[in-house]
């Protein structure tokens, strides 16, 4: 028998709904337990771990070159950057100098990957807000990048292209031509994104002033990546702790002070322009040389702790390796930017509508496998 409730009891009751594990807007298997008051979100409690694969545990049993292929499976949209985090840590620990050519290729690949990731984010974000056409335009423009990846690395999504000390194989002879063609094409097509979505009055109404996080709060909560930069937190690792060639190229760190969903959106659109600028600076100047440094057959790191900060498409990724001198690491920790960004979701979406919750979680650009690892 159901209890007979007084009206005031009902008013105090939480209306709980489960967003996920299977829900179109969580972009994967994550569960958000949302307490509602009518349409208004009162509390969001994320539950993750549905695709926890124990990558950190698996890494403890693998050698360093073998770890690489697991890292692309964390944040599959920034596979190259994830690979780079491990490679750079190992290279830093061993103190080897990698060829200049490798640095150039890695930078270009990272930026291409960033564009591809932001494109996919753009289409998914458009879809979250109900504009389904965005989804197809974004995917259409992502295709040339994946083709470029496939041509050089052999796969489209999960490339495992970097190895400690260099690259798996040299770039394809057509690489430079294809990349230049793509940049030309995408410079023409990117304004279309603005026409379709950015300028749209419905879109602006849906995103402006929604999910505001102040700069202090963003720093305190560790909200990094484009989401953090939307709050004015200058957290771009490419500027703060340059790796690859980022200290040599000229690019702007896209910062917005508003801290709302629209600012986070704009940061990503601007970053696509900036990434294209970086690629254009480098693509003609790739020096000749080896595509990998001389590495020992079995890589053993010296005893100690090593870490490398890498800017992925959604925030700051840290690979922290504790080594005891063996060929396997003692402990590998990946600081997942998605997991930490997710922690801010509750604060951001409080007292907004359920439709805004979808927009906010879309603007954080969460990739669930990275979160769960």
């Amino acid at each position: 028998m159901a209890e007979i409730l007084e009206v005031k009891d009902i008013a105090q009751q939480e209306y709980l709904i489960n967003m996920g594990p299977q829900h179109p807007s969580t972009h994967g298997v994550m569960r958000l337990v949302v307490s509602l008051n009518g349409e208004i979100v009162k509390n969001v409690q994320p539950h993750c771990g549905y695709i926890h694969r124990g990558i950190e545990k698996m890494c403890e049993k693998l050698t360093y070159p073998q770890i690489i292929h697991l890292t692309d499976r964390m944040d599959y949209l920034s596979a190259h950057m994830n690979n780079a985090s491990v490679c750079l840590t190992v290279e830093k620990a061993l103190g080897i100098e990698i060829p200049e050519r490798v640095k150039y290729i890695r930078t270009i690949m990272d930026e291409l990957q960033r564009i591809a990731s932001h494109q996919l984010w753009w289409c998914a974000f458009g879809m979250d807000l109900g504009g389904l056409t965005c989804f197809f335009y974004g995917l259409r423009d992502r295709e040339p990048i994946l083709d470029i990846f496939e041509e050089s690395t052999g796969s489209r999504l999960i490339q495992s292209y970097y190895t400690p000390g260099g690259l798996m194989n040299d770039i394809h002879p057509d690489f430079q031509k294809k990349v230049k063609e793509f940049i030309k094409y995408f410079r023409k097509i990117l304004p279309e994104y603005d026409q379709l979505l950015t300028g749209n009055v419905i879109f602006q109404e849906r995103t402006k002033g929604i999910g505001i996080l102040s700069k202090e709060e963003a720093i305190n909560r560790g909200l990094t990546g484009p989401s953090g930069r939307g709050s004015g937190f200058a957290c771009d690792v490419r500027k703060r702790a340059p790796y690859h060639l980022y200290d040599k190229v000229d690019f702007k760190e896209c910062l917005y002070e508003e801290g709302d969903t629209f600012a986070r959106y704009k940061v990503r659109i601007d970053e696509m322009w900036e990434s294209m600028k970086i690629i254009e600076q480098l693509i003609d100047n790739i020096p000749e040389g080896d595509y990998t440094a001389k590495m020992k057959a079995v890589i053993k790191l010296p005893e100690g702790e090593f870490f490398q900060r890498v800017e992925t498409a959604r925030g700051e990724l840290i690979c922290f390796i504790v080594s005891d001198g063996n060929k396997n690491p003692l402990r590998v920790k990946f600081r997942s930017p998605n997991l930490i960004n997710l922690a801010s979701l509750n604060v951001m979406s409080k007292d907004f509508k359920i439709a805004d919750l979808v927009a906010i979680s879309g603007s954080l650009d969460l990739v669930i496998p990275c979160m769960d690892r």
Partner: protein
Amino acid sequence: MAFSFSIYDFTSFTQWIDKSLYAAMPPFWALIVEMVIIGIVFLGFYALLGLFLVYAERKICAFMQCRVGPNRVGPFGFIQTIADLIKLLLKELIFIKNADKILFNVAPFIVIIVSFLAIAAIPFAKGLHAMDFNIGVFYIMAVSSMGVIGVLLAGWSSNNKYSLIGAMRSGAQIVSYELSVGLSLITIVVLAGSMQLSTIVEGQRDLWFIFKGHIPAIIAFIVFLIASTAETNRGPFDLAEAESELTAGFHTEYSGIRFAFFFLAEYMNMFLVASIAATVFWGGWMPLHINGFTGFNHVMDFIPPIFWFFGKSFFIMWIMMWFKWTFPRLRIDQLLTLEWKYLLPINLVNVLLMALIVLMGWHF
């Protein structure tokens, strides 16, 4: 009465059926038989149109999205929707535990019957008109606003939180947009001086109302387009379904043919509002006539009225599909803001403006 059939004027044909039926049997039975015939014709029309519209929407959205769209089943994927229909018919009807069984089963029927009722008053061509009420516009508005009951019942009886939110949104939405639809139609009723749809169509013999009524008619048409898109739960106003927020809104728990009813009703409602817009603003089956150009008018007359009617309706439907596949979805508060702060005041001013124009005789 002798049998005669003309594609330009169905009056004699329908009269012939009517007369022969009344001659052959007592009036009561003749009426029954007539009703059954019309019912069957509408059912067939309904099913065919639904299939075609689903196909058309998929193809149109595909082309807007740089895709090919359905292309596997039959040439150009023509048979795709028929295959989908067969699939939906064969699917298991899942009964929800703890759902309100009666209401759960009744809801899809309410939705589909309502759209079915309203279609009776639409003049498809000259003489091809099931019921010519003298309050046709009012009847259509009254009947089509009942669809919300089905949606509300579906959402409530599913015993699902997403469905309930979807249904409540839909209730708020349809009830408020009903106003704008009504007022924008009233603007034209003021101009036409009648609520009878056949009179409205006849009144556009020399020029369609959208051109006749100057700016107020154009504003009324735009408002009607927006409000009716909202009323059919489509396009940027599909909050009741809101796929990315509420999975499928009020019909989350429905499966098989009962889901198909909701699906079909959505398309039929779209056709309904498009045909009302075509009839009231764009002259219905009336060809494009311009006063004074006799030769031009004769050329236009050569195209049968039924093509004029469906051409206009499909064009308006195409615009509605264009909306849907371009815009992001509104939020519930913005949706209500749009209605109460923008459309309704504009509409009220517009009616006054139209009344002024009619009184002063400024229209063409």
